[in-house]
């Protein structure tokens, strides 16, 4: 199932003029990434580091020094200013049509969610206070953030996530066949060829694009997905119904699962690790190990910042932490995730890190997997 080129009634009707603006923002992002950002490390070497040395009488050494040295470069400062501006324009370019068409989209979502022919389910938890460390931030500057919930039928958080995410990803060079779930299908085929999941849990599912893709890929499987915000989940559920795939969406914290032990064959997350604190990450890993069945797989996929070849590249990639509302971006990028998985209870021999090719472009994805020992295996 495609995840970025699907049509369904919860997407806003967009005028030709609005599409022009969105195309302009995608195009600007492509140019910025390919022709401006790509020179940032050179700017550090040629402008930033010498200016830092002149000011401080020493070469930049620590990550803090390196970050300061980047900002000594006028070219880097201009890139940073433009990148922030364009990121803000993503949300305005998709927000206009969403807010204009909001009532229709919301009615369409409600109709799908309440249809007698619905295939999946939505389980909201009114007692749950969406994780403040995520809910209080406009992650990647998305207005209102992941847990935005303006009314009992609101779906705006999901609409923002899907439409803004498409603009962002196309600007990163992703094609219309881009699919993070597809990366995991490829990993399962290559590294776990005999593994066919029948109960799947998608942690931090946001607008449910991957959740729906799992349901389509494994039509016999019982697919569950969770996230923190009701608005996001209403959208994800309605989207899955519109695409004709059964998924049960839960409002739940990945660090505090309400499923019994050994409930799932496969537990996945897509781009969740970089959105949560170290403490929540460690809890989520332990919870995943608890609810996956013996012999089952836990797989976390995330951004490729961890593959940075040097401290300078790593600091360059950490821009999102201070400028893009990605407050745990750096925490994720510099974490020892194998140690975290081990501390969560996975045996070192069952943990593997993977540098995965994206489905539709030259980007890479970081993946870490852990297998729970089958009954009878030595732990």
């Amino acid at each position, binding site marked *: 199932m495609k995840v970025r080129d699907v049509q369904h009634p919860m997407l806003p009707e967009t*005028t*030709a*003029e*609005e599409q*022009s*603006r969105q*195309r*302009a*923002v995608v*195009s*600007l992002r492509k140019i910025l990434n390919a022709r401006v950002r790509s020179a940032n490390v050179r700017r550090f070497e040629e402008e930033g580091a010498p200016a830092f040395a002149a000011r401080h009488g020493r070469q930049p050494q620590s990550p803090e020094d390196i970050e300061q040295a980047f*900002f000594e470069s006028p070219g880097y*400062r*201009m890139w*940073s*200013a*433009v990148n*922030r*501006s*364009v990121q*803000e*324009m993503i*949300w*305005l*370019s998709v*927000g*206009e*049509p*969403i*807010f*204009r068409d909001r009532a229709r989209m919301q009615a369409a979502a409600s109709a799908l969610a309440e249809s007698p022919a619905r295939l999946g389910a939505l389980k909201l938890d009114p007692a749950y206070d969406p994780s403040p460390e995520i809910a209080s*931030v*406009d992650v990647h*500057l998305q*207005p*209102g*953030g992941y847990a*935005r919930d303006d009314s009992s039928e609101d779906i705006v958080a999901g609409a923002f996530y899907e439409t803004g995410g498409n603009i962002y990803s196309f600007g990163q060079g992703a094609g219309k066949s881009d699919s993070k779930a597809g990366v995991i299908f490829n990993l399962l085929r290559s590294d776990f060829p005999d593994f066919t999941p029948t109960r799947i849990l998608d942690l931090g599912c946001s607008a449910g694009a991957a959740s729906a893709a799992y349901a389509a890929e494994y039509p016999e499987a019982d697919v569950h997905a969770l996230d923190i915000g009701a608005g996001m989940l209403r959208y994800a559920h309605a989207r899955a119904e519109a695409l004709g795939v059964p998924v049960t969406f839960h409002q739940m914290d990945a660090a505090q699962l309400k499923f019994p032990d050994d409930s799932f064959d496969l537990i996945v997350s897509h781009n969740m690790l970089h959105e949560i604190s170290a403490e929540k990450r460690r809890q989520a890993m332990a919870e995943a190990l608890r609810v996956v069945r013996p012999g089952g797989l836990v797989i976390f996929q995330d951004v490729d910042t961890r593959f940075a070849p040097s401290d300078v590249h790593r600091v360059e990639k950490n821009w999102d932490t*201070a*400028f893009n*509302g990605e407050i745990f971006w750096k925490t994720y990028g510099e974490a020892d995730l194998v140690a975290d998985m081990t501390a969560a209870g996975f045996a070192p021999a069952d943990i593997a890190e993977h540098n995965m090719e994206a489905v539709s472009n030259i980007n890479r994805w970081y993946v870490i997997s852990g297998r729970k020992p089958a009954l009878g295996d030595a732990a």
Partner: protein
Amino acid sequence: MTASADTIAAVIESGRGTRPYSLRNQEAEQVLNIALALMVELAASNDRIDRLERLLAETRGEPLDDLRNVLPDGDAAAERQAALEAMQMRVMRVLIDPREAVDGHPDAR
């Protein structure tokens, strides 16, 4: 169709958090933001012109390139030249009329 200003305001006002600046001059960065937003608006306007040209060419049954390559001559050419110079005078005003720079802050007057 352009969304109403109120719709745009609602989108803008629903964002939260600070705005970290990168340039050493905050005013300059705001002007940069305005310039980038105008680039997006220009792209939208260019797309509108393109749609009109295509529609006109189709309506008149003539090749699009022919329509796009109609060059003004005579009075029309002179009118375009005058309009071009007037537009550039407006845009280049601050350079054409630089004035002596003085600090306008109250404590500097």
